């Protein structure tokens, strides 16, 4: 029994999440000490609401990275699908609920995802190249063919969805209130669904398997091409849902303001311990990493950092964060290679 416990402890200590969680906690405490505002209910709600869109993106980016690829096209994809569906709904003067916006946008997202998927799955082109190309294509379609403009009004359904709140958190001291958007449920729902999918479906396991070894996956009987295509369709759908949420929450549609989020989202996912080479990573870690980035981005003022020093701080955090995680991975390897030389020796 004692052995088992030791083994378990060893396994936990090898994981990335606990360390990351400590870093997160340290950051939160630092903000709390500097501002006294961090753990206030309204601030936590604000952070949660700021997490929704990057969080959804991160789920998609996570799946792709686990499968051994890298996707930089999701912000452009989301922008295009949400712009196309919103303008359509406006043009028919749609007055119904938000579901149609989701449906339309997710459908378009699925098609765009399929576009990525075909090039990556069928033509077996490197993911970075394809998504870099498709980012430009999606953007070109949106801004060129659709002649996208900022939309000051959005369909009423989206407007209502964006302002509806699960509950309202109130800071007893300052009297500030923050509402927890209903959209958080969508985020939580997708997160749980994807967690279940990754853990309890053969499809989910196939993503890990492909990331581990594509050849083995093929030999084991996974349909690698189909799996890859489905991954990118799923990413397209999730990203598009994120796009609808973003627009609904902002009450306005700025076609380009999601562009450029990709690198920070990926940084968050990798910060969360997902191996950039594929195959390894947990959704929990991915979420902690993303949360870390979101908190840093949204706590500069609470930390009292002057505007002109913002980028120094974010840059330093990315370097230090990834540096710490890289160190940890290396020390893990060292422990492993040392264990090879221990009495019960294992070959390499």
């Amino acid at each position, binding site marked *: 029994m004692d052995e088992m416990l030791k083994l378990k402890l060893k396994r936990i200590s090898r994981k990335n999440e606990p360390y990351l969680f400590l870093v997160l906690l340290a950051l939160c405490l630092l903000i709390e000490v500097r501002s006294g505002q961090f753990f206030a209910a309204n601030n936590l709600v604000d952070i949660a609401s700021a997490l929704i869109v990057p969080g959804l993106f991160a789920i998609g980016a996570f799946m792709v990275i686990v499968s051994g690829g890298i996707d930089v096209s999701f912000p452009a994809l989301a922008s295009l699908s949400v712009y196309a569906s919103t303008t359509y709904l406006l043009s028919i003067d749609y007055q119904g609920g938000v579901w149609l916006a989701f449906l339309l946008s997710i459908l378009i997202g699925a098609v765009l995802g399929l576009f990525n998927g075909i090039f990556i799955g069928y033509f077996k082109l490197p993911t*970075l*190249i394809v998504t*870099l*190309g498709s980012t430009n*294509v*999606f953007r*070109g379609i949106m801004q060129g*063919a659709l002649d996208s403009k900022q939309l000051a009004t959005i369909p009423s359904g989206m407007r209502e969805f964006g302002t509806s709140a699960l509950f309202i958190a109130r800071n007893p001291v300052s009297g500030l209130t923050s509402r927890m958007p209903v959209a958080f449920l969508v985020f939580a729902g997708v997160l749980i669904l994807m967690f279940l999918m990754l853990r309890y479906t053969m499809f989910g396991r196939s993503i890990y398997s492909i990331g581990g070894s594509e050849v083995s996956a093929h030999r084991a009987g996974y349909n690698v091409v189909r799996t890859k295509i489905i991954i990118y369709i799923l990413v397209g759908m999730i990203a598009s849902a994120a796009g609808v949420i973003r627009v609904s929450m902002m009450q306005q549609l700025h076609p380009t303001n999601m562009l450029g989020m990709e690198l920070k989202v990926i940084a968050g996912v990798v910060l969360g311990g997902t191996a950039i080479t594929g195959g390894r990573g947990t959704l929990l870690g991915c979420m902690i990493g993303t949360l870390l980035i979101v908190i840093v981005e949204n706590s500069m003022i609470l930390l009292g950092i002057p505007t002109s020093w913002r980028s120094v701080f974010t*840059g330093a955090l990315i370097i230090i964060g*990834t540096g710490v995680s890289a160190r940890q991975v290396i020390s893990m390897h060292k422990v492993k290679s040392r264990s090879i030389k221990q009495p019960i020796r294992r070959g390499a």
Partner: protein
Amino acid sequence: MMDKVKTNPLKNGIAAVRKDQHIFRLVLMLIAWMLFLAITRFGRFYSLLNFQTMAAQFPEFGIMALGVMVAMITGGIDLSMVGMANLTSILMAYLLLALTGDDGGLPAYAIPLVFVLGLGIGAGLGLFNGVLVTKFHIPPILATLGSGEFFIGICMAITGGAAVSRFSRTYARTINNRILGDMIPVQLLIFIIVAVVIWFFLTKTVFGTKLYMLGTSPKAARFSGLNTNKLLLKTYLTSGMCAGLAGLVMMANYNSARADYGGVYTLQSILIVILGGVNPLGGKGKISGVILAVVLLQMLQTGINRFPAISSYYIFLLWGGVLILVMVLNFFTERNDGLRFKKLVTTKF
């Protein structure tokens, strides 16, 4: 030796281009686009001034792309080019401000000094990246993403976001100028020098061979006695120097320096390098491809501006479309190679 001199160099060139399918394809695209422009917009595109303008425009991001290429050959990437370029140019702008005399002129040593120091600063910043990659083992994509943000941050912190300008116009007039009877833009000359130097390093020196080897297999490189860390340090040092130089060119083009100049170049330079046929996994890629891609992109961008009725956003569609198209065509030709290779592998066991 005599034989080589006798054979037609043009023929040799064409044969070489035909041999490399990827380069061949880029050349074809370039020709197709130029033909299209010749038919539709001859007078507005085919003028000396236009070509001079383009030749003065692409060096700033072309040089960055060359730096990214070097990093990508080793299997890495450099997302901090813009940060390094701006930090270099801002520091050098301050230097120029200090050197600017009361009469608005510069001492003769000023411009060489700026170039030497600028290259030095670029090298230093690149070295910083190199240390992150080799000593701290941060994946290049994250290390340079972080450092890029960090460098921009330093720019913001020292300038407060304002442009550094009002230094002597002599600097801009010297670099943003045409020489050889008002024909060749100086920027183009700088680009050519950088390209030749990098081409020389990659193909003619030991360093180049080692880089390709390192990019192919870091493990085998170590087992072959290559000092991989030193090579990577040199790689990022090189890309840093390219960035520094690009910064100096930008400073001349805009007669000022600011934290956010050239923000679009980060992704653009990666696009160029990949379009140029450099393998993002490392070990493969030619400078001729990258130069072609730079020229192709500039032609697309300038060409499309000749059509006022067409939204400039189509430029994105064209870039992305060309990139994917080239890759798909490569897939069709390389699939045969792939099959051949696969067969060889399978027969081995």
